């Protein structure tokens, strides 16, 4: 899944604007995840595990090894035995809180969207019994919630997400390298960022993580205005991170700008996939289920 576009109808509780109106980060995470799971029709948590989950009538195509022969012996019917999957994967969520993430053209900024996504992922991971950690960064690491699987740990992460403050300039590669150096166990890393940094450095940092054995998924969060550049008149554009200004007639440079943005996104997608890293581009107006679906797909490959 290269882009976050989904063919599923958006559920109301996954709409970023609806989520933003919910009271707390915990509520937002719960709403997103539960809503997402309701739409899946089958549990994502089943798999090979010691924890029994349920019986289900055999359907053509099911693995015959999952048939419960004892039940067949008693009832002369085929049932498939399902187990809850138990994991002990360390999942780390990296959230970019640099100043560029505060940009918004609609109701939800990139940082808000990223934080909702991070909360939903944390909730999902926790429910899957994975250990979850959170790391926010701009040019340095701002917040670091260590990996943990205890029930109270999720709350700690959600509180940290509630208390996010806009940082300064971004340096994604520096955060990635710091994380790679600190990781003791292989695990899963979800990077939520607008990736407005040096692409070579960012890709190198992500490759470093991948090299250390971690499964990496990148959520490239962008505002629709950053992609479509819907401005027309002469405008003084001020960089949110550096404060520099460029005065230009927006309508005249739109084509060139959009081309540059597309080129950057395409480059990230190409380089990261070549490195075996999942790349998911999301826009702040899109429902959050696309990102979650991407995560689950990545998670299932482990």
């Amino acid at each position: 899944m290269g882009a976050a576009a989904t063919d599923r109808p958006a559920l109301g509780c996954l709409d970023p604007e609806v989520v933003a109106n919910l009271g707390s980060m915990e509520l937002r995470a719960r709403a997103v995840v539960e809503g997402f799971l309701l739409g899946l029709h089958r549990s994502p948590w089943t798999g090979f595990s010691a924890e029994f989950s349920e019986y289900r009538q055999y359907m053509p195509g099911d693995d015959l090894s999952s048939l419960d022969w004892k039940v067949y012996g008693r009832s002369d019917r085929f049932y498939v035995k399902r187990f809850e999957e138990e994991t002990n994967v360390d999942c780390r969520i990296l959230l970019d809180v640099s100043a560029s993430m505060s940009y918004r053209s609609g109701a939800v900024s990139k940082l808000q969207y990223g934080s909702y996504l991070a909360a939903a992922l944390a909730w999902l991971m926790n429910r899957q019994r994975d250990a979850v950690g959170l790391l926010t960064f701009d040019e340095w690491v701002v917040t670091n919630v260590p990996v943990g699987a205890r029930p109270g740990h999720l709350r700690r992460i959600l509180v940290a997400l509630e208390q996010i403050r806009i940082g300064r300039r971004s340096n994604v590669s520096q955060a990635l390298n710091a994380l790679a150096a600190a990781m003791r166990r292989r695990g899963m890393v979800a990077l939520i960022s607008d990736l407005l940094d040096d692409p070579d450095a960012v890709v190198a940092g992500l490759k470093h993580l991948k090299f250390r054995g971690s499964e990496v998924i990148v959520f490239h969060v962008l505002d629709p205005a950053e992609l479509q550049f819907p401005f027309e008149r002469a405008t003084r554009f001020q960089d949110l991170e550096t404060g520099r200004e460029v005065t230009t007639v927006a309508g005249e440079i739109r084509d060139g700008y959009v081309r540059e943005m597309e080129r950057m996104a395409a480059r990230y997608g190409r380089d990261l996939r070549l490195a075996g890293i999942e790349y998911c581009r999301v826009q702040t107006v899109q429902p959050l289920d696309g990102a979650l679906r991407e995560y689950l797909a990545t998670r299932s490959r482990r």
Partner: protein
Amino acid sequence: MTFLFPAFLFGALAAAVPILLHFFARDRAPRLPFSDIRFLERAFVRRDRRRRLRELLLLALRVAALLLLAVAFARPFLDASGRGRRITVLVVDRSLSLSAPGQMELARERAREVIASTSPDEPIAVVAFDDRAAVVQPPALGRPLVRAALGRIEPTTGATRHAAGLAAAVDVLDGRAGRVVVVTDLQASGWPDDERAAIPEGVSVEVAAVAPVDRNLAVTAVGADAEELSVTILNTGSAPAESEAALDVDGREVARRPVTLLPGGNKVRWDLPATEAQVATVSVTDRYGYRWDDTRYALLDRATPAVVRVVVNGGTLDAGAFYLAQALAVAPASRPFEVTPVAPGALSASPPSAGEAGDVIVVTGTDGLSRSGRVRIAAFVENGGGLLLAAGPGIDPRLVRDLLGESVELGVEMPVGAATGSRSWIRGTRCFGRSGTSLRRWAACDSRAWLASSLPGLPTSRLAPTALRAFWFASIRAIRR
């Protein structure tokens, strides 16, 4: 290139407006925080080169448009004066002395010779002068322009003043070097003793002389008496001249005859026609000399107004003789009437002069007419003056009898079947002539008679040329005695 209205060039300052807008209007672009301007800058750098070029081109066009507008309003034109070069100024005499046939053409010919001898890259200006000077053509390289300017010069009636022409030439030169060529017939009167002309350094003065007229006929004097006109015609040439003299009276030619005019003054006489003419015009045909002195006029002075003294009670016209004055003013007569009101009492103090042909005394009132006044009126009539006695309410018949004497008869006709016994009518009162022969006696009237009549005027033989016709009295008030 120079400008007709250089003040409009200040409008070029408006070109600063688009320039200022170009540099300061950018700051009015709204500020918009954006996530990352790196891509903007990349796109901007590429696009902005083109855009900046386009903006600069647009700015240049706007500025150029404003500048051209200002220049257009200033009305530029190419100056063909050859500024900075040596200039030739032709100063052409157009005074009266050049009015003789062929003289002006001679002067133009001299000027053309000067033009032909002037270098083609040397501008030429033309100044015409008599007792004043005017620049006919500013300095110009185009020879057709200069020749056309020469063609526009015509002789005038002005005197010759060379200093005026030279001063205008110096003004045209405006401090530049050049030469002044004076084309003139060199009249001696063109340089009065007290007149000077200052020629700046670097300016030379040349004279292109036109030969003066060697013979001229002029009517120098016209004298008129009652019957004859005496004319003096001067021949300035050295040989007798055959010519023709003509007499016009009141614009109509009455006589023309050939004359042989010897050098010097010649007397010519004409009998005046017996008319009431006012102006006589004598002219001589002069084929070689000045035309301005070929004609002379004389007033015949035959139209002295007829003096009408109105003896009126009160001494003012508006009191009793207003209608008389109005009627005389519009009376169709070859001589005007001069109506003067006189109070009866003042007649003795300022008596009328002895009666002259056409002079009349009209008596409309006798209040205060003294004896001496009556004697003077009688003497006026005896000397040829006319007298009109208006039998109106202001007339005292006793004074009239005294005035006219016993030899004058006054007639009174009573209207047939009219009026009552206590009223009588007097009518047909006419003029009183020198001998009174045409007058009718005014007999003793009834003391209570009404006077009402029309007075036909003053048709006396003596006053025939200035007869008072259509003199009409109306509304004569009755008097009761």
